[in-house]
């Protein structure tokens, strides 16, 4: 770990201003990912801006019947929130599928949005990684890439986004609220928040320098069966190999409406609206899978994710329509 300056601003405005003034500054909340990366010098911020005391820890109803989740709401608290459990069950289930009890007590909503990839090579500073060191190359391509992306990857990076929460947020069409150093507020739809790697895998989100996440807003609840199916290498405390967040509303025996988002497949939560339409149209999971997996390409070690995603989707659709 490199020595760093530590700041604990008293207000949101001050936090954003500090972030703009200080070169190479990072916000820290739960620190469950950032501190690990700092110990390995994958991240070497010159200043840490501790936002834990900012008034961003509340969950409140929005006028249109949705929910506004403060950036600092802990994953454990969010998962246990009565409205989240009853009306946004896919989010509660996704959160509880992630990490461990200790980590969920510490990790925050905004921090989870910014969780970085678990690519082995990203964590190993003796290896090339375009995300860690732009222009150095990608060691995962041609390497041990069992956990890597099959969709939306580039020649520069085949990393995945490891978050469970993000997949559910994508299915729910969450909106990320931010404040810029100049005080301007902005709303970023979750679909635009995370980026594909392209030529700049080091840039993972739409956030601008110094911009601080203040909340995540959920639109009013989506009717239907909420499921989060996480396929993983052990029963708990493992990142998703593939995951599916699904909200499926039945009309009689048919699928009336569906939302499907996938984790473990790409650099961002993967959602193809055409797939949802296909499922509604035919009622067949494989038609949705065809649409989701169009253009999917394995890297050798992760080829299995393509049939796995299809089979997992079948299981989820079967469960939702059986219910």
């Amino acid at each position: 770990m490199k020595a760093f300056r530590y700041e604990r601003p008293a207000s949101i405005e001050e936090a954003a201003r500090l972030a703009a003034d200080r070169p190479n500054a990072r916000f820290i909340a739960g620190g469950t990912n950032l501190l690990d990366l700092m110990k390995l010098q994958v991240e070497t911020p010159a200043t840490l801006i501790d936002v834990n005391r900012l008034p961003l820890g509340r969950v409140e109803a929005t006028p249109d019947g949705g929910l506004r989740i403060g950036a600092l709401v802990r994953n454990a608290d969010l998962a246990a929130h009565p409205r989240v459990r009853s009306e946004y069950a896919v989010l509660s289930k996704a959160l509880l599928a992630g990490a461990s009890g200790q980590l969920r007590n510490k990790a925050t909503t905004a921090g989870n949005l910014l969780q970085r990839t678990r690519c082995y090579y990203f964590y190993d500073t003796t290896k090339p990684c375009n995300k860690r060191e732009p222009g150095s190359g990608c060691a995962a391509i041609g390497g041990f890439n069992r956990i890597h992306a099959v969709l939306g990857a580039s020649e520069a990076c085949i990393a995945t986004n490891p978050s469970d929460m993000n997949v559910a947020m994508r299915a729910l069409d969450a909106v990320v609220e931010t404040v810029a150093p100049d005080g301007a507020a902005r709303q970023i739809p979750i679909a635009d928040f995370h980026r594909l790697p392209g030529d700049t895998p080091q840039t993972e989100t739409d956030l601008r320098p110094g911009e601080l996440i203040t909340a995540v807003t959920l639109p009013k609840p989506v009717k239907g069966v909420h499921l989060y199916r996480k396929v993983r290498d052990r029963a708990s405390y493992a990142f998703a190999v593939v995951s599916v967040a699904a909200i499926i509303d039945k009309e009689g025996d048919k699928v009336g409406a569906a939302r499907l988002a996938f984790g473990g497949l790409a650099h961002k939560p993967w959602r193809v609206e055409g797939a949802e339409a296909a499922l509604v149209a035919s009622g067949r999971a494989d038609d949705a899978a065809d649409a989701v997996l169009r253009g999917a390409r394995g890297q050798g070690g992760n080829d299995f994710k393509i049939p796995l995603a299809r089979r997992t989707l079948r299981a989820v659709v079967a469960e939702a329509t059986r219910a």
Partner: protein
Amino acid sequence: MDMSQPIGSTPLDAKPDGLVGRGIDRIEGRLKVTGAAPYAYETRELKNPAYGMIVEAAIARGRIRAIDLTAARRAPGVIHVMTHENAPPQGKKKEQVGPVLKGPEIVHFGQPIAFVVAETFEQARAAAALVRVDYERAEGRFDLRAAMPAAIVPKQVASPPDSSLGDFEGAFAAAAVKLDVEYTTPVQTHAMMEPHATIAGWDGDRVTLYTANQMLNRGQVSLASVLDLPVENVRLVSRYIGGGFGAKLQPQADAVFAALASRVIGRPVKVALTRQQEFHGSTRRSDTIQRVRLGSDAEGRLSAIAHESWSDTTSGDDFYETSANVTRSLYAAPNRLTRHRLAHLDLPLSSAMRAPGEAVGQLAFECAMDELAERLGLDPIELRVRNEPSEDPEKKVPFSTRQLVPCMREGARLFGWEKRGAPGSIRDGQWLVGLGMSAAARLNPLQPSSASLRLERDGSLTVRMAMTDIGTGTYTILAQIAGEMMGVPVDRVRVELGDTLFPKAAGSGGSWGAASAGSALYVACDDLRRRLAEKAGLDPAAAAFADGRISGGGPSVALADLAGEGIEVTGEIKPGDLNKRFSQYSYGAHFAEVGVDIDTGEVRLRRMLGVFTGGRILNAKTARSQAIGGMIFGVGAALTEEVAIDGRFGTFVNHDLAEYHVPVHADIPAIDAVFLPELDDKANPLKSKGLGELGICGAGASIANAVHNATGIRIRDYPLTLDKVLRGLEERDGGAQLRRT
């Protein structure tokens, strides 16, 4: 005492419901759970230590052209930076413990290339990252399969690498039913909770190391060699150890660095390996390739058994996985062959990990038996029963005790083995359900050990020995042995371990700890009993010890009244020739039920049972913990644990506990271990056998066999991760089209 004669009746036999055997809580448990038990890195005896950090090589093979220490030396708090250019002279390599920083040559990724010492841990770590190295890279060899043709016959250590009996090839060719299969197991890491850690300090030319180590007297000798000191000038202290599983059988680089640096800077130095460093900077279990060939008649009587194993280690080292050793004694067959081959690769050092040999050997062999049973249409237990030997099939000597068949039968009864169906026939919702079993066997060794026992003036007892407790319960069972032998309650027995100032002991490893240390203490108790009886004017043979008193016909006398200023005795145990005249193993049988997700191929354990025999059980609770701990190791070996090698870099890719998957609580539902009554009078005066490794032996195979029973899919490449199961499910389902929703 040496074990040349079977043990007759002992005071421990007289009280079957006595202290020994009772499942009492660990006597040091409270200290541990309250954080009051100092582990090596936390000891405070050596004042004002500086902090060290190891710098690891970033390449796997080549040379250091130059090291630039300018920035590291200038970094805040840095006291000293050691490299091969300024390292103090060192002595000779002893066993696997060698000098550090020998020169510019790099032989594996993560090899220590520098040691930074600073005022604080954070400063040492930050400065370590500033060491700049210019490497000359060379091609490395990292692939066992590619190295198989060049593999050598390893040097004989304890057992011969090859064995044969009769005419295997001829009998196999003529067999009515044949099986010829290859199994592979990956590199594994010990993943104990406490990393390697040492605090070292000097007093003149004597060094003391507070270090996480399983075998202190062995470590003392090897460190004395490397540090070029007389053995008596090296003291090792290791009072509490957070698991070892073989990784701490021998001192690692942390101990050598701490001692060297402390001498250079004239101040104690402490260092611990980071979790990531544990993967490359410590030892590992080698990957193996194993070929098993079985030939039998139509009724399942084996005529030919062959088990061949290839493993690898760093160039210049001799360690190999003795995968096929246990196969030499497990099942009867007149024609037999075992072979071990060793490849030298540019990977970190291989060494012992819980049940070296048996753990991976039975992963292969016990699945091969399951395959043969299926081919024969026989129940796997019945196949094993039909090949139960009447004596050790290779050594041709009797077994000291062997209750493999009772373990299998009792396990089958307790587990509901009769519910096992044909492969792929049982479904529970999304789960394909299967049952599997495996035999378990582990060599039972005895090592020389000594113990001192002192009757204090107040009638309490103090036990001292350079034994270790690596979390197994040694403190507790020693208190139980002394307490029962001397008729004193456990809370009146003080057990002091983990210091080479105390009498030499075997340490913890190879499943010999409890038997060896416990027997030395037994001998000391026996001596003290005799002395006290004589003092009390009693016939030693008739004297009884209970409630802190000795009696024998007349009125009883308090031990305190006989103690005077204290009486100290020493007990010693040595192996005799009984281990050659008898084949000595612990045995057991594992039963596992798994569910395999029909869509995703995820394998989840549903329940597991081990039925074991280990001679006299010294503490029912710690014995059960050892057994289920071993079984859980087996779950990891079967389903999740694999150190993945990047063949381009010679790097262990998943070198942290986020991506090297050991089982977590959710992976271990109903699990139990039971012990059948047994006393082994050929083993040691306690009549006990080792349990530390028995639980892992065969455990993973029972799970792999259950996966086969659940799905009909046989996977011969451990671990059975979901991608491998999925391949089988896809093939079975005939591709993606057939099962459209």
